[in-house]
């Protein structure tokens, strides 16, 4: 019988490797992490350190080669692809470095996308998307297409899309990597607000130390392993 965990995310002895012909490339080696509900965690490390791979495992985009990934009591490494898709839709919001909005849809329609997987009516989807856009201060840009938005605005739309279905966990992969300092700080401030005021658990990958300062806790990865066994905590 497994021990009950107080964490929202529990990663135990996770390894991840890829086969390239006869060669096995191990990108994560025996990672153990616990992330509490409502935490804002920054995963830092140089390129190739495995931070995005780890983020993909937590977000259910990939599966570990060995070890377990448990999120909110669900062993997501044991879910089939269909169940995993449903689980992602219900539990995780994703924010990418390059926003990854669908260019032919308006901001509102982009935000509505996750809601297409729910039983909400068209009017309810529209209303929820507008609320999410208001929450990121973009209520007046609902009809704009991504190409008509600045980088910061596009990222706000991406955040609105990530939170519209009210997920427990927000996964952010270099959310400010394509933004200038000022805009980046605004986005990070918004994430911090979502964490503090709305209780969202946020896991953010970044190699920008200034961005990491917005997180309540920082973990350093290098060559597929946590550098410090003792996790350092800091308040922004």
């Amino acid at each position, binding site marked *: 019988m497994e021990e009950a965990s107080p964490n929202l995310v529990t990663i135990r002895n996770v390894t991840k490797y890829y086969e390239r012909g006869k060669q096995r490339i191990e990108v994560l080696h025996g990672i153990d992490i616990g992330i509490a509900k409502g935490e804002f965690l920054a995963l830092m490390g140089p390129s190739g350190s495995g931070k995005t791979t780890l983020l*993909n495992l937590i*977000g259910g*985009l*990939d599966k570990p080669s060995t070890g377990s990934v448990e999120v909110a009591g669900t062993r997501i490494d044991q879910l089939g*692809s*269909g169940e995993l*898709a*449903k*689980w*992602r*839709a*219900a539990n995780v919001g*994703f924010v*990418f470095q*390059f926003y*990854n909005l*669908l*260019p*032919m*849809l308006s901001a509102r*329609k982009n935000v509505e*996308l*996750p809601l*297409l*997987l729910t039983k909400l009516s*068209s009017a309810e989807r529209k209303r929820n998307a507008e609320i999410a856009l208001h929450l990121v201060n973009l209520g007046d840009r609902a009809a704009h297409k991504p190409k008509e938005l600045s980088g910061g605005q596009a990222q706000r739309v991406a955040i609105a*899309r990530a939170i519209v279905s009210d997920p427990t966990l927000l996964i952010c992969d270099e959310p400010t990597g394509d933004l200038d300092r000022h805009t980046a700080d605004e986005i990070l401030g918004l994430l911090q607000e979502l964490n503090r005021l709305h209780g969202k658990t946020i896991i953010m990958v970044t190699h920008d130390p200034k961005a990491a300062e917005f997180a309540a806790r920082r973990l350093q990865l290098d060559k597929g392993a946590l550098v410090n066994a003792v996790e350092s905590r800091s308040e922004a």
Partner: protein
Amino acid sequence: MKYLPLLWANLLRKKTRTILTILSVIVAFLLFGMLDAVRVAFSVRDSLEGASRLVVSSRLSIIQPLPYADLQQIQRIDGVEAVVYANWFGGIYQDRKNFFANFAVSQNYLDIYPEFILPKEQEQAFLTTRTGAVVGENLANRFGWKLGDKIPLEATIFPHKNGSNTWTFDLVGIFKAREARDRNQEDQMLFRYDYFDEGRTFGNGTVGWYVVKIADPERAAEITQAIDSFFANSAAETKTQTEKQFALDFVKQMGDIGLIVTSIMGAVFFTILLLTGNTMSQAVRERIPELAVLKTLGFSNQRVLWLVLGESLLLVILGGMVGLLLSMFGVNALSAAFRGGVFKVDINSWLTGVGLMVLLAVGVGLPPALRAMRLRIVDALVAH
């Protein structure tokens, strides 16, 4: 339905490409509708119901003549009001491209065609002039013929026994259609059978077909049966049918219409399959990162497969429906050229068309849809 705006937005992403693809699908289904109407017209037997005229030809083949002696026997069959006869001549006026129908006919031929108006004195001239010919007004206008003109036709089947290939006729009458819908029937030339029969080098004493006027159209089926039964087991068995069916069989001599039409449609759809398939594959290839994003958001593999297939279906159904609608207009125009509305896009053509649309959509959509379904999110996002 909730995915329709998403599918529509994807189609409109590259408007020019989508419009061109839809246009090619429209053309394909326009051709399908028209060709299928032709195929159906040549494969469906015309109903005898209400027919006031029947055509009696050889049971063996439309080009096999019947004995002239059959005339009196047909006239004696109960319910037959009048019998006329004709023989295809196939003459060429000056140049092959000047094609028009020309027949040797009995002198009373126009008596059973009240839809044509021939002035009395011209009718009389036809009866008294062995080399006389009457033509429809359209044909006269086309070649600038007027009464009294001599019209030479080059024989393609029947050389003249005088050794010449040229038959010369005196234009003694110009008939007009009573109704506008019959104007297309004015493109023919009729001349006297006795002049033709005496002058030809073979086949004398035979006619191509008989046209029977019946007193009671309600008895068409019965009289048809009576005529064919009468000549059953004779040296020249007959096939009696409606004029429309006879005309269709006449055209069928050119070849297997069904095979020709199916071959053309097959080639068209194969080309469309390649063209549209390439477009769909390209469109999906360009959107791989976006499909990965949809999967990230929780769209399952199957849902992504259906989205791509739905897009393909929308594209083909849109073009196909417009094409079939346009074909209805085209077929109506074609039908107007054939008396009695021979061609039409019927419910079966629509159902076959919709079936083809679905097949085409699956054919062009399935390979990219499978690719999208199998897409690994992590790989696609890294590639982006």
